[in-house]
């Protein structure tokens, strides 16, 4: 499952179910949520914009690399677009592998690489303004 969708439509249970595999004993799930502060400044919301077809293509590449490099059976990545309030889910990555170590490594590779290569842009809103975030590269 590789999807961009509005925050309200992100269903973590469905994402976890989508990677379940009878020959895998491990599922690692990373959930990125909206923090209430950034270097002490109060965040009110985030807004995510994506270059959708390319983002889906880059997310698919990440999923395929996780399958090859970490022997994952299934990989799902769902990223929010549009507004995300504090505490809401911005991204969910789930990876199933036969053994546990690879599930952690594959999931961490996926979120690290997502931030580097996937054309999604985040705008942070504070009480007194907003700005585009410049994370990568």
């Amino acid at each position, binding site marked *: 499952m590789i999807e961009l969708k509005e925050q309200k439509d992100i269903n973590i249970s469905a994402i976890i179910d989508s990677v379940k595999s009878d020959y895998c004993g491990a599922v690692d799930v990373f959930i*990125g949520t909206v923090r209430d502060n950034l270097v002490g400044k109060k965040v009110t919301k985030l807004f*995510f*914009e*994506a*270059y959708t*077809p*390319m*983002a889906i*293509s880059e997310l698919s590449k990440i999923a395929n690399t996780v399958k090859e490099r970490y022997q994952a059976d299934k990989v799902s990545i769902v*990223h929010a677009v549009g507004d995300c309030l504090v505490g809401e889910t*911005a*991204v969910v990555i789930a990876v199933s592998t036969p053994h546990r170590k690879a599930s952690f490594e594959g999931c961490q590779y996926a*979120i690290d690489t*997502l*931030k*580097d*290569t*996937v*054309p*999604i*842009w*985040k*705008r942070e809103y504070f009480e007194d303004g907003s700005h*585009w*975030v*410049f*994370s*990568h*590269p």
Partner: protein
Amino acid sequence: MKILLFGIAKDIIGSSVLDWKLEDEGSTSSELLVSLKTKYPELSKLRSIALAVNGEHALGEEILKKGDEVALIPPMSGG
């Protein structure tokens, strides 16, 4: 040629799509990026700015054709 704009690049250029006249058919993506930075000097002040051609991160050597889908890629910040 249409150039898709996102994030801060959209704010700098003031539109989500830029109509761009490809000067000659044999030019590369890195040449296009130089032209865009010349026309919109604010782009050069970003931490990074790159192009995607047909949905792939451009390496610079890509020869551009009229029908290509080009996008400006300011610093990404997903996750």
